[in-house]
């Protein structure tokens, strides 16, 4: 049989013929695989950088947040026709009306039962009484539902869901969301409700991603595992005069008076900005204003009254209200006080009686307001999005998909704070707790679990990720570790498909080209056969030719793929790096987000695939060729 070096000598002669066709084949196949290689190198680099940045912040932990959907069962439309609740609501309403009549008589005030109508209504379609939607919040209905829930609802236990998986620990994060009233930061030290004459913030519409990111969205008291990684300065809670808080980077940047960097800002300017924001935020304090519903209602009333008086100041017929309220200073979060009271003694007595009557039967409270001082001890990640979408934005979103972007009070600091800094009206049961994990969760609190391994966290997620009508719904939380694993497996699946499609196209191109070459070489094959070549010798020559052709393609693919990946890295890394630094709150600002990586196993597969499909493409025409009678091919002169 022909020796390997001789095989190569003869195979090389074939590569020197039909050079245009050869170049075309290398170009087309190389372009396809070159793009694939570039995608692999870039995705490998991205994943590697994500892993590297993922070690920042909460770090490489397997944390899942689980929300209980049990309260859905008690939403209005699910219980409106519940016979027990309807009957109990009617009973409670009757008792309430009777009690109100008695109390009105005792106080000597008027009470009209029509002012407190029966909270049920007959539904023709159902043929029975149901709760009237308009009175769903009436005390009778609320109490009836609470009693029903207490009697029927099984208390939610996160352990019953997570215990069969490898749980490392349960973490606690409690929303600071006063049941009665609102808690909002005082932007620039001023009360937003007064400055903007808007009491409600929930309906605030954000005009841009930047505006959203730089706003306050929510505040939690969070387990140290979740919050302390973002703390950047020492804090002594026992000597504290303010509540320590980790706030969003974008909020800090805006509040500190930094103007938005232009889109043309250089990467070094962006990184310098991050450095400046971090440095300045270390001395930053933010005031919050808490007002309960009555305080807020009074504030609204005072503002409306002030507006009305101002509007009618030139109207001689206008009569100012008998009670005129005085607006608190916008930086005090103070109470709304009475500026003048022109009521008679009887009118005041009647008002006091009505107030007493309301407090007895409704949830009315005295107006309460607190000004709370917060001290910034760290910054949570903020996805640094521009208003015009870019690839860097896409990566930034991916980076911060599970990152904690709300404000956090580290739990270990919180429990040690002096009591006067954490009013019960604002912090509820957590205010007096020594261990926040023991504080009962509200419907808005998620159950946060850290799993011992990626596998157990993924198994749990697969079993409990739910977007429909389910008992619980779980999602990755606090760290991108789990998301990155999904991204990695999705990417691998995509690469597998892309490789398959490209290989299929390449087989057609290479099969066509190699087939033509073999067909063109039939006469030469016949001559070789005449002078003593065995069929296996011909197979060896064409196999060697195919492998040499593949090597040329591989070289072209390597040059093209690596070149494209380096270009992508050159263009994108400078813009992605600052976003990654903020999205992960990376401590080391010299860290680079590199978009090229050479550690994907696919890098080994590509040359093998190219050689493999080339040989596969070669086989059919070659097998047909060596089975031909050489005489037939020599006669075709």
């Amino acid at each position: 049989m022909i020796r390997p070096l001789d095989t190569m000598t003869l195979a090389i002669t074939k590569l020197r013929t039909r050079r245009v066709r050869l170049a075309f084949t290398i170009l087309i196949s190389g372009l396809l695989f070159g793009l694939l290689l570039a995608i692999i190198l870039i995705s490998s680099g991205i994943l590697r950088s994500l892993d590297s940045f993922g070690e920042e912040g909460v770090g490489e932990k397997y944390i899942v947040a689980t929300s209980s959907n049990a309260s859905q069962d008690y939403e209005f439309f699910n219980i409106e026709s519940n016979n027990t609740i309807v009957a109990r609501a009617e009973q409670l309403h009757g008792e309430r009306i009777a009690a109100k009549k008695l109390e009105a008589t005792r106080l000597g005030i008027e009470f009209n039962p029509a002012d407190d109508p029966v909270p049920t209504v007959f539904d023709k379609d159902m043929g029975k009484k149901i709760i009237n939607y308009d009175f769903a919040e009436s005390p009778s209905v609320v109490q009836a539902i609470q009693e029903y829930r207490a009697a029927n609802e099984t208390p939610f236990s996160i352990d019953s869901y997570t215990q069969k998986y490898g749980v490392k620990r349960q973490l606690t994060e409690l929303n600071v969301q006063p049941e009665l009233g609102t808690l909002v930061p005082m932007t620039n030290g001023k009360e937003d409700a007064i400055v903007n004459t808007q009491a409600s913030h929930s309906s605030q519409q954000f005009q841009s991603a930047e505006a959203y990111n730089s706003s306050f969205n929510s505040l939690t008291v969070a387990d140290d595992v979740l919050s302390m990684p973002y703390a950047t300065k020492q804090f002594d809670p026992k000597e504290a005069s303010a509540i320590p808080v980790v706030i969003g980077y974008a909020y800090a940047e805006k509040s500190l008076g930094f103007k938005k960097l232009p889109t043309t800002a250089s990467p070094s300017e962006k990184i310098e900005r991050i450095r400046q924001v971090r440095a300045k935020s270390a001395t930053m304090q933010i005031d919050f204003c808490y007002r309960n519903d009555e305080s807020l209602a009074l504030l609204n009333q005072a503002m409306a009254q002030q507006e009305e008086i101002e509007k009618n100041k030139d109207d001689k017929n206008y009569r100012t209200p008998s009670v005129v309220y005085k607006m608190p200073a916008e930086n005090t979060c103070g109470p709304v006080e009475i500026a003048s009271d022109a009521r008679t003694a009887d009118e005041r007595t009647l008002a006091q009686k009505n107030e007493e009557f309301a407090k007895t039967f409704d949830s009315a409270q005295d107006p309460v307001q607190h000004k709370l001082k917060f001290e910034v001890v760290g910054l949570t990640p903020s996805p640094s999005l521009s208003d015009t979408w870019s690839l860097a934005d896409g990566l930034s979103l991916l980076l911060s998909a599970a990152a904690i972007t709300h404000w956090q009070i580290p739990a270990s600091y919180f429990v040690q704070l002096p009591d006067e800094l954490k009013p019960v009206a604002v912090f509820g049961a957590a205010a007096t707790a020594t261990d926040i994990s023991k504080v009962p969760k509200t419907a808005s609190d998620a159950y946060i679990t850290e799993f011992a391994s990626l596998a157990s966290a993924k198994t749990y997620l697969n079993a409990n990720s739910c977007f429909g009508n389910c008992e619980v719904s779980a999602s990755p939380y606090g760290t991108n570790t789990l998301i990155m694993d999904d991204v990695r497996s999705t990417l691998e699946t995509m690469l597998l498909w892309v490789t398959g499609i490209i290989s299929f196209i390449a087989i057609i191109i290479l099969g066509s080209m190699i087939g033509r070459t073999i067909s063109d070489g039939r006469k030469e094959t016949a001559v070789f056969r005449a002078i003593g070549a065995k069929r296996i010798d011909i197979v060896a020559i064409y196999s060697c030719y195919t492998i040499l052709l593949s090597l040329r393609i591989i070289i072209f693919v390597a040059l093209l793929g690596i070149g494209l990946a380096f270009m992508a890295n050159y263009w994108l890394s400078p813009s992605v790096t600052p976003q990654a630094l903020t999205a992960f709150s990376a401590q080391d600002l010299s860290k680079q987000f590199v978009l090229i990586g050479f550690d994907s196993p696919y890098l080994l597969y590509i040359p093998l695939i190219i050689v493999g499909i080339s040989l596969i493409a070669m086989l059919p025409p070659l097998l047909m060729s060596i089975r031909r009678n050489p005489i037939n091919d020599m006669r075709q002169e």
Partner: protein
Amino acid sequence: MAHHRRASEDDIAQYIALFDRPVDAVLAIKEYLETQRSSAKHHQQSPAPDTPVIVSARDLRRGYKVGKTQVDALRGVSIEIHQGEFVALTGPSGSGKSTLLQSIGGLDKPSSGTILVDGTDIAKLSDNKLSTFRNSTIGFVFQFFYLQPFLTVRQNIEVPGMFAGNTRSDRRLSVEQVAASVGLSERLEHMPSELSGGQMQRVAIARALLNQPKIILADEPTGNLDSANSRNIIELFDKIRQEFGTTIAIVTHDRAIANRADREISLLDGKLA
């Protein structure tokens, strides 16, 4: 020029007018007359030599289909060629001479009949053994040379040695020997494109000789050459026969070659004429 009647002066004048130079016409006439003389001598000396028979074909038949038409290329041909003999296979186109040559060389398998070459019934050989047989026993020379354009003369001559699995050093020795025999020692590092037609055919002959075959089968080896080169090639074949004792069978239309051969085997319509 007709040879069955004496040429008139006019005939000769017309024939000379076909050439650009009168000297070419004279050379052509001289060659023609020599051919005629050697043909007459040849036919008088055609009995087979006493050497052993190296090729023995018995009742060879070969048919194949061209479209829907059955073509009988060989119709019961029986021949014997002796060792060291120089045989010319002649006949008009389609007479079956090339088919006979390829059958002897094991490139084509007869539909029936037997071929013994050097004592081996080649019809019974497997494809692999047939390849080895061709490589070691037969040397093929073709009308169109079939050289590898991107290999040097040396490498082209080496090709049969490559298929024999010979080492490069063994081949180098053999190449230099055969190159010297065909007069190409100075051209070994040249590329085929740098050679004339005659030189290319010499390379092809050297290639055929490399593995020291017992038989050289040449299919119209001068068909693509001018008369001077043709003459040189025939002389080379004769020299090879003398030098190596190689049996030579040549398919040719060229009367000069046929006349130069020891024996002419003529075929007509797939039969011996």
